[in-house]
């Protein structure tokens, strides 16, 4: 047995599969009579290509050709033909001796017959008893983005899609019904053509720059998919739907189905768009003259704080005499000409220097077609997106081959998707001191030029002196640092399905996801080091990461209809395993900048490699029963065992059940003719979150070496994590009740859902007494609740020439911590600085901002004397509230919750219209009530006159008679009064409303283009993000410095702005 298991792991399954493929010969039917006909579209009165024509009860069929014609041999006992086409109502025609049957198909306005993929099966929308959101290919076209998840933005109730960074290829945050986990990750499970893919690749190859402790945004592992290949996207929202994915279902499941070929003549398509991107929003910064004034004022105030008799007019010699050894009070000579108002001096807009108009283009060629027994879809894509920040970009080369083959009782299929993505990276999210180019461009003084007269980069802002903070030239950094990451991914799956009995089939499938990352970084000697003039020691790194994930599934499917009873069942067994291997090498002492690969490094300063694996073994089963299309019941269970779980908790069980009642099917409702559908749904389920560390249950040792003798390293090892054999998955119990309401033949369709999800056994790094040698320990403890309301409404109307539809959605989610560990009354976490705190405690939202409360500025000494204040507060400094009323300002206790990053509600709407050949669509979305911690204010709004400042700094307090707006502190290079203490002054309202997309298209008349052998030609223009309405000070109100950390969300410490994109596109098929 062990042998076979090993053989199996080496790919025995695929051998099995292909053997099976050839073992079963096809079974052909015996035919007697020929039937012909034409199928036309009711609305356009044109022939329809690719309509499936099936003989009812037999496996014989045909597909209409280019002119809408079909012919087939009718078996002897056949009586009825079934005509079907995606998006059209299915028509059954009795043959009744005819030999020519012409059929008119009508577009399906009802959503109820839509087939919804639900994981290990599919279901008609009308039969759903759980909360599933869907999006079809038509709804995701025309949007010029590099990954499909960006298209989901604002489209589905209960699915919050945020783009914290505008960097091409950066991660997108998808949250289904709030945030249930505090530390174990909140990303949904993505299942691509039945293969659950691992979120572990989001990190790419480790995202830090050498020596940096600030994480970059994760890469988007979904950007390897070509959005044009996607047929449909379903999101399983409630636990009952997601429970079939057991220990991975609690954050919701996103099912992605790619396109299949349709029987018929091969259709060759070319879809393309080209466009231009620009920054959607910028900061309003001071110019060089305005900044110089504040620089001067800040130094005068610092001077007079130390020498009250000092005058503004004192020159540096006098100042130095009055206050020794304090460069912060001197006036830098470079600032002097600006103070005297000399015209025409350097006045650099650094944002202009690092941002650009960036082109984007995408080309997809696809071919699809086949016969009734063999269908294929193949596509190739090239995408090139340059970033709006100089030197950033993303390219994708993507191929796909999908095919299905049916031969009698055997069906086999194969999907293969190789992709190469190339990320040209720029450190854009990091703070200025971490070489983040955006943070630098905002902070560096506008008095410095980008280039010197001789064309070299200007570094005068570095090691300037005068207690001026050192800045590197952001343009030099962006252009000269080479940082490239390539990802090669092979995503594939194959299956074989055999009908054992009429109602029973067996399916064996094999999936794989192989990723190879390669990242090369080089920082040349021509760049200066911060704080140090002249050439630097070059630093290079080379990183690779290889991961392979394989999945084997065995499923038995049973379907039967007995009278009005409809029963389907699935049972299966699956195993999945992922292996990683990564390398990291860092070197320095390059002889020159000519050879930048790591082999040229004279000294390797750091090298490491890492190997990890996880495995998952599962059994699953589900039964669905309905009676007379009125009463629905469903129950499912999954058992998961994983290597990640501690020895005492190896297996978890995840049951679920749901029921539905289609009231509109009852006789007593028939009199209400306007009511086309009314269904009540309720579900309950248990899911898990297994995104816990691979070896979290085992105490690990880490290297900590020492120097003995001369310079020789003596290796040391010490425990770095404690053991917890009880470690297990997080559990989410959820209930969902919903109503589906269709009126006027579903022209108006409304779905309402209320849910409540309780996540227990939260994986927490629980603080432990430091006397134990650890500061935290990973444990399953505590409870979080998410409850909310979702509504979706669709109105649609179609006349012969004019059609329109309007869809709107609304979601409100309320997040609340119910309990934490015993002895852990709250979790305080620090963000970008040690004094910036978030609190997670019972009764409050996860990761609420927790800070002192500022209340304007002290206008004079009398106001200071009259109220508790920090020791060195002076007029013009912040007045902090004495929240606990103890008569002193103490930043440990004088804090309170100041909102959170969670929006109160989000909404979205889409309008589609078409008239004759024209189509128009517009969508908008918005979010309300989120707060953002704009930590950049620490620098560009601190009024020290050191870094450049945002324009509202002009409202600062200058004197008692010139108090500004009374809310903004005085200029002071050596700040007093703890103005820099992170408080609600650094917070900003993150509410926004955004027009997401506007598209206008035109489909050329068929008769016109047919002469050029073109079957369809459509051209469109589109604008992505045309308008953003927000009061937020920064670039992007969805910003989040640490998107995968639930404990301290919503921080803006410099972020890559989103783009507005203008595109022109063509859809062409032959």
């Amino acid at each position, binding site marked *: 047995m*062990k042998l076979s*298991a090993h053989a*199996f792991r080496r790919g025995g399954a695929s051998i099995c599969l292909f053997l099976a493929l050839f073992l079963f010969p096809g079974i052909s039917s015996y035919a007697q009579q020929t039937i012909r006909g034409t199928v036309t579209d009711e609305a356009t009165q044109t022939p329809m290509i690719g309509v499936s024509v099936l003989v009812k009860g037999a496996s014989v069929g045909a597909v209409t050709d280019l002119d809408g014609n079909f012919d087939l041999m009718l078996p002897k006992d056949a009586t009825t033909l079934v005509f079907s086409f995606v998006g059209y109502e299915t028509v059954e025609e009795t043959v009744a001796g005819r030999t020519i049957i012409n059929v008119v198909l009508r577009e399906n306005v009802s959503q109820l017959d839509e087939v919804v993929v639900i994981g290990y099966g599919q279901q008609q929308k009308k039969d759903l008893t759980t909360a599933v959101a869907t999006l079809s290919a038509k709804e995701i076209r025309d949007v010029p983005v590099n990954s499909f998840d960006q298209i989901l933005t604002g489209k589905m109730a209960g699915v919050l899609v945020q783009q914290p960074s505008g960097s091409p290829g950066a991660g997108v945050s998808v949250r289904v019904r709030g945030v249930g986990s505090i530390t174990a990750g909140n990303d949904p499970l993505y299942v691509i053509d039945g293969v659950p893919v691992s979120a572990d690749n989001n990190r790419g190859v480790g995202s830090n720059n050498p020596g940096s402790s600030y994480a970059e945004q994760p890469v988007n592992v979904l950007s390897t998919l070509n959005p044009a290949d996607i047929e449909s996207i379903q999101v399983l929202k409630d636990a009952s739907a997601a429970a079939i994915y057991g220990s991975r279902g609690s954050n919701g499941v996103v099912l992605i189905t790619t396109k299949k070929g349709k029987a018929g003549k091969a259709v060759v398509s070319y879809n393309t768009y080209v466009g231009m991107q620009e920054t959607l929003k910028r900061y309003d910064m001071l110019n060089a003259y305005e900044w110089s004034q504040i620089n001067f004022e800040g130094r005068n105030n610092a001077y007079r704080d130390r020498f009250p008799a000092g005058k503004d007019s004192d020159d540096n010699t006098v100042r130095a005499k009055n206050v020794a*050894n*304090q460069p*912060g009070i001197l006036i830098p000579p470079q600032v002097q000409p600006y103070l005297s108002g000399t015209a025409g001096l350097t006045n650099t807009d650094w944002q202009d220097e690092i941002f650009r108009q960036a082109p984007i283009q995408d080309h997809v060629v696809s071919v699809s077609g086949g016969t009734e027994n063999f269908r294929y879809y193949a596509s190739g894509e090239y995408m090139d997106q340059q970033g709006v920040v100089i030197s950033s970009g993303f390219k994708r080369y993507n191929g796909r081959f999908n095919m299905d083959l049916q031969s009698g009782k055997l069906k086999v299929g194969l999907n293969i998707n190789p992709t190469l993505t190339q990320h040209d990276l720029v450190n854009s999210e990091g703070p200025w001191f971490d070489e983040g180019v955006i943070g630098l461009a905002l902070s560096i003084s506008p008095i410095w030029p980008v280039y010197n007269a001789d064309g070299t980069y200007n570094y005068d802002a570095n*090691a300037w002196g005068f207690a001026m903070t*050192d800045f590197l030239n952001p343009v030099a950094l962006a252009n000269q640092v080479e940082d490239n990451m390539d990802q090669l991914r092979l995503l594939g799956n194959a299956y074989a399905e055999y009908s054992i009995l009429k109602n029973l089939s067996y399916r064996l499938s094999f999936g794989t996801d192989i990723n190879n990352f390669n990242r090369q970084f080089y920082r040349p000697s021509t760049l200066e*080091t911060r*704080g*140090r003039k002249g050439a*630097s020691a070059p630093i290079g790194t080379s990183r690779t990461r290889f991961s392979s994930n394989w999945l*084997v599934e065995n499923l038995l499917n049973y379907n039967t209809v007995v009278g009005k009873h409809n029963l389907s069942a699935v049972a299966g067994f699956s195993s999945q395993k992922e292996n990683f291997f990564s390398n990291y090498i860092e070197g320095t002492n390059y002889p020159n900048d000519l050879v930048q690969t790591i082999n040229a490094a004279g000294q390797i*300063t*750091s090298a490491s490699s890492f*190997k*990890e*694996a996880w495995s998952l*073994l599962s059994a699953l089963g589900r039964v669905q029963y309905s009676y007379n299309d009125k009463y629905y019941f469903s129950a499912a269970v999954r*058992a998961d*065992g*994983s*290597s990640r779980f501690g020895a005492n908790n190896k297996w978890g069980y995840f049951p679920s059940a749901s029921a539905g009642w289609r009231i509109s099917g009852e006789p007593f409702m028939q009199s209400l003719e306007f009511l086309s559908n009314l269904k009540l749904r309720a579900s309950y389920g248990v899911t898990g979150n297994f995104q816990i560390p691979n*070896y979290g249950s*085992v105490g*690990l040792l880490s290297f*900590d*070496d*020492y*120097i*003995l*003798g001369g*310079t020789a*390293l003596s*290796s*040391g*090892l*010490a*425990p770095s994590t404690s*053991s917890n054999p009880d470690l297990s998955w997080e559990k989410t119990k959820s209930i969902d009740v919903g109503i589906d309401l269709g009126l006027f033949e579903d022209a108006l369709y409304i779905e309402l859902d209320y849910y409540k999800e309780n996540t227990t056994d939260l994986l927490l790094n629980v603080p432990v*007494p*430091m*006397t*134990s*040698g*650890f500061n935290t*320990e990973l444990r399953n403890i505590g409870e979080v609740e998410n409850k909310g309301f979702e509504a979706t409404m669709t109105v649609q109307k179609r006349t012969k020439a004019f059609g329109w539809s309007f869809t709107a959605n609304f979601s409100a989610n309320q997040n609340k911590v119910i309990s934490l560990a015993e*002895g852990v009354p709250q979790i*305080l976490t620090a963000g970008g*600085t*040690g*004094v910036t705190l978030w609190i997670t405690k019972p009764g409050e939202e996860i990761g609420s901002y927790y800070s002192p409360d500022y209340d304007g500025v002290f206008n004079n000494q009398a106001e200071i004397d009259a109220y508790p204040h*920090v*020791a060195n507060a002076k007029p013009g400094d912040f007045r902090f509230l004495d929240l606990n009323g103890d008569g002193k300002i103490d930043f*440990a*206790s004088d804090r309170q919750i100041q909102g959170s990053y969670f929006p109160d509600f989000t909404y979205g709407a889409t309008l589609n219209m078409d008239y004759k050949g024209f189509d128009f669509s517009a969508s908008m979305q918005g979010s309300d009530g989120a707060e953002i911690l704009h930590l950049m204010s620490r620098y560009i709004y*601190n009024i020290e006159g050191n870094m450049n400042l945002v324009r509202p700094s002009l409202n600062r307090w200058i004197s008692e008679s010139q108090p500004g707006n009374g809310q903004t502190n005085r200029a002071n290079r050596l*700040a007093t009064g703890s103005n*820099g*203490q992170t408080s609600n002054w650094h917070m900003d309202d993150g509410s926004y409303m955004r027009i997401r997309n506007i598209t206008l298209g035109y489909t050329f008349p068929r008769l016109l283009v047919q002469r050029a052998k073109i079957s369809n030609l459509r051209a469109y223009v589109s604008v992505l993000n045309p308008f953003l309405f927000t009061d937020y000070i920064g670039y992007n109100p969805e910003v989040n410095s640490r998107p995968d950390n639930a404990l301290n969300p919503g921080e803006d410490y410099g972020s890559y702005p989103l783009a507005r994109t203008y595109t022109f596109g063509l859809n062409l098929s032959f």
Partner: protein
Amino acid sequence: MKKIVFVLAAFLGLSACEKDFLELAPESQPNVNDFYKNAGDILNGVNAAYASLQTGSLYGGRDFQDLTEYRADNVFDNDPSANSGLRYNVDRFLAGSENTIFESVWRRLYLTVYRCNIVLDRIDGVEMDAALRNRYKGELQFIRALAYFHLVQLWGPVPLVLKDQTTEASRSNVRNTVAEVYAALESDLKAAATNLPKSYAAADLGRVTSGAAKGLLGKVYLTQKKYPDAVTTLREVVTSGDFTLMATPALVFDPKNEYNKEILFAVRFSLANASESHGLYYSSQIGDFVEPSLRNLYGATDQRKALLDLRKPTGTQNQTAVKFFEEPTNNVVGTDFPVLRYADVLLMYAEALNEVGYQATGDALTNLNAVRTRAGAPAYASAELPNQAAFRDAVLLERRLELPLELHRWYDLVRTGRAKDALKAIGLTIQDFQLLFPIPNSQVQIYNNPTGFPQNQGY
């Protein structure tokens, strides 16, 4: 359900052995279940205890300096706006228990204790050379004592943990008395002095010697005012001949002359390995950080004054004191940090002798003058120090002149009862409770035991 999975699995010929499939041990990191089994493991454990002293929280960075130098009257924080005054507030006695500097040091000291405890717990169960086992024990006992010595001086009564504890067990720790802590660390140091060799082969230079253990024990006695014990112990160090003063003060700190004969124990660093380096100590780009009152104390011929001069690395605005200067590579340096050096021992010996009984001439004066004359300062004539009090003042002054920036000043001020006066002289009025630091707020909350684990009074 598990059985069903099994049957299915077996039926399909897939996975025979669930155990094999689901039990994956970490491959890139050792785990505790398999470790501490042989002499090599123990050696790695001992080295990691030394390495714990290198962190930025202790001898590798600024946090420790904040508590023991900035807090005292030798240096000051000149950048109140940095980090919203995080460090400035420690310097100016404004910081409360939430200030993360306190937690950083507390955490690392207990982590150091833990690394010693876990090896000391397991070492007797490992088959190895008995002499080597004793040496390893001695090294760990010294490091543990050093950590507790800091803990008890900074926070007073602290939990005394001498065994590897589970995290659960550690929740019931309480604050032991100061006397209990001192008793434990005296016992550790006595054992270490016996267990340890006088010296090591060149490749092991930097390990704790018996001389270092005795030197530290002398300091522990002195701090507790056990003067006769201090005299006995320190005399052993002075008469051993194992240590001497360098010819000039600058030579002690010369990066090319590390771990010289004046060093009893230093925390070692190296520029050759990026992970074993540290940033320049006391580096600032704002301006001076040395109290003018200290600079003004040096006589014209005193070579130690120049060690406090500020120096900038090439091309930068940063500056640090010459004492710890080395030209950085990639902004880091590899200078060792002296924990205990012979000049300190001589001054402690002189102080202890004087406390036992003033003598106009004798070893006390000789040793005090040895330190002075080495630095180019004039020797005291015995008439200049006519009584015990005058000598006491002189030896304390000498400690300030000889040892600034070396993390001794705060402890010296507290143990001699002079902290309030010294701080008053630089314009800071403090209260008695501020002679101890606040226990990190997070720890008080975790224990949530106001009787067994109270916050220090006043905070």
